[in-house]
Each structure stands twice: as C-alpha cells, then as structure tokens.
C-alpha cells in the first residue's frame, strides 16, 4: 500500500485539475493508496513516523523539490522508500531523478525502479542535497583530515553537497559528472561571484563553483554562531560536523535520470 503526502500549496484552486488527473492515473495503474495533505498542524516528520508504525514502506511525495527534501530525514530514519510526483515548475531535483511532471510521474512510480542514495548527516539530521553557509564567511573555517580551509574575500558561499543539482540556467553536463550521491563521499563546494554581468545593471549574475574538495567528514568552525541552511529549509548553527550518514535513502527514479545515477 502506498501512502501519498500532498504539499499544502496544492490546496490552491489552480491545482485542482492536476491533482484529479494524478489521482485518476494512479487508479488506472492500480497504485492507489491513502492520501494526506500537509497543513500547518501536520508535520511531515510525525506523519512519516506514524505511517512507518502502521507498516507503510513506500511514501510518495506530491509537491515540489522542497516537499521532497523536507521528508528525507524522517524517511531515512524509518527506512521508507520515497517516490516523488512533481507538480509545478522549476523542479530541478525531479529532472535529475528522471521524474516527469504531474500524472506522467505516476508511470515511473508504477515501474518502481529503486535506487539507493547516500545522505549527509549533521547534528543528527540527514540531508539529501546540501547544506550552505553564505553569511560572515570570513569568520569561519572548515577542517578536513589534517588541514584547514580558510575562505578568502571573494568567496560568497560554502556548501557541503551530497546530491548536487544545479541552479536554474547552470549547466548540468560536465559538472554533474564530478558529483555522485552514490560514492560514499561528500563534496565541499566553494562558490564565488560570477564575473558575467547583467547587461544593463552591470551587477554580477549568479555564482561560480570555485573549489571542490571531496571527503567523508568536514568540521565547520567559526568565531561565532553562524546559520547553516540544510536542504534549503532548515537552519542550524555552527560549529558542526558534517559526514556521510550511516543509512541510505531509497528513491524511485525514472529512465531519464542523470547518467551518473546507477
């Protein structure tokens, strides 16, 4: 039995028809199950824990990349396999996993090709994509093995990536081959401002990957508490030790997934 969790934004009227199409397709493919909508009062973590206790082993996230990333920690801790039906635009993670949008993703769920991914761990929280720090970088350092990495003036973001998915407009091809979420390693990614400037404002556009260091553990230290953003939704504070989680996350993926996903 599948359990479907819908993000709260899907309650908007404009998504009604899409949701109906998705539900009809799930019925056609005979992969229907129980459906639950997230609200302010229902936390993802509690829903997942309750479902795991009921014996559910597959949860399908209906929403966007943010919805998927929010459920990763609880899913991994409860050995749940995750599926994902992306709805809306700009779901880059869904693209990387080979998941077509809306009702077309139901076919991927039905085909049930499952891949195990590594996860990152920090402060007993698991993350799928990355953690980032972009404030007061001159007050922190990162230690790995027997050396220390000290950011210099033009550094604008420090991140630790497990699954690297590019920002909109960023090239997928060559860069993606450097990163793998199945190699039991994390990548420390340091970004600088792009030298490309907007044609009328002359302000720099976007960020460039400047440095990449692979490792299994990074220790982030700072002179004061600095915010670390986890998978784009959760904030923790420095100091922090980031390492490869001892568990893996099982995810249903499509045929069009990135070539570096086995």
């Amino acid at each position, binding site marked *: 039995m599948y359990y479907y969790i819908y993000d709260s934004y899907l309650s908007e009227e404009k998504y009604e028809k899409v949701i109906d199409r998705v539900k009809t397709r799930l019925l056609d493919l005979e992969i229907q199950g129980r459906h639950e909508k997230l609200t302010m009062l229902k936390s993802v973590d509690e829903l997942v824990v309750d479902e795991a206790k009921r014996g559910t082993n597959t949860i399908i996230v209906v929403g966007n990349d943010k919805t998927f990333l929010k459920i990763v920690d609880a899913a991994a801790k409860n050995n749940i396999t995750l599926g994902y039906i992306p709805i809306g635009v700009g779901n880059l993670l869904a693209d990387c996993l080979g998941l077509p949008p809306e009702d077309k993703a139901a076919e991927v769920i039905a085909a049930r090709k499952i891949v195990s991914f590594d996860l990152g761990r920090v402060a007993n929280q698991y993350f799928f994509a990355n953690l980032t720090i972009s404030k007061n970088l001159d007050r922190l350092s990162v230690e790995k*093995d*027997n*050396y*220390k*990495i*000290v*950011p*210099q*003036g*033009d*550094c604008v973001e420090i991140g630790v990536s497990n699954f690297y998915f590019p920002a909109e407009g960023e090239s997928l091809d060559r860069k993606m*081959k*450097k990163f*793998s979420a199945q*190699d039991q*390693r994390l990548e420390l990614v*340091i*970004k*600088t401002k792009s030298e490309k400037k907007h044609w009328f404002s002359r302000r720099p556009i976007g960020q460039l990957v*400047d*440095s*990449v*260091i*692979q*490792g299994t553990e990074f220790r982030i230290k700072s002179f004061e508490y600095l915010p670390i953003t986890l998978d784009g939704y959760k904030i923790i504070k420095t100091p922090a030790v980031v390492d490869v989680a001892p568990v893996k996350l099982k995810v249903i993926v499509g045929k069009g997934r990135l070539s570096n996903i086995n």
Partner: protein
Amino acid sequence: MSGVDETVIGHSIKIEGDLVSNGSIAVEGEVIGSIKTEQTLKIGAQAKVTAEVKAQSAIISGKVEGNIVVEDKLELNESAEVTGDITAKVVSIAAGAVFNGKCTMSNGRKSSEKAEVQG
C-alpha cells in the same frame, strides 16, 4: 570519479596544513603546509604554494616555495617560479620559468644523474 578524490583548490580559499589526496589535485589558490597526491598535481599560474610537495606527476605554472618530489614527470611552465629542490624522473623546464634550487633526476636505475640549475 569512483574511488578517488578529485580536489580543486580555487582562488577563493587558502589551505593550511597537510593536503593529502589519492586523486588528482588542481591548485589555483594558496596552500601552506604540504601537498601529497598519488596522481597528478597541477599548480595554476595564480597559485601560491609554500609547501613540501609530493606527487606522481606535476605541472607547475605558479609560485612554489618548498621541495618538490615527483615520481614521474615534472613540468615547469613559463610562468612557474620555484624556490626549492626538485626530484623527478623526467623534468621539463620552459623558457621563462624561474627555478632556484637543486635538481635531482632519477631514471629508475641505481645511478642517478644530478643537475644544478640557477634561474
């Protein structure tokens, strides 16, 4: 990429300590301490390295202060500035490169050829 580290040190960071990797290393920033890799080390034109260096092979275009020991081939490009002793099986020094130190070359046989170059 399976099983090996690939390290890129850009100009926006400084490394202090012992940088060890079993994969290739590319340095465009600053490194103070030591660098050791079982594969290729590339030191870019903007890089500043104050370190003892050990690598399988190395291509140097930037500034290095410290001894360099390379198993295979060491290339000093025209923008390279090396202050320290170098040891390698094969050494290539481009016109314009600055090298101050002792050069020891070994072709794997017992006897070794030594050369001293003052840049």
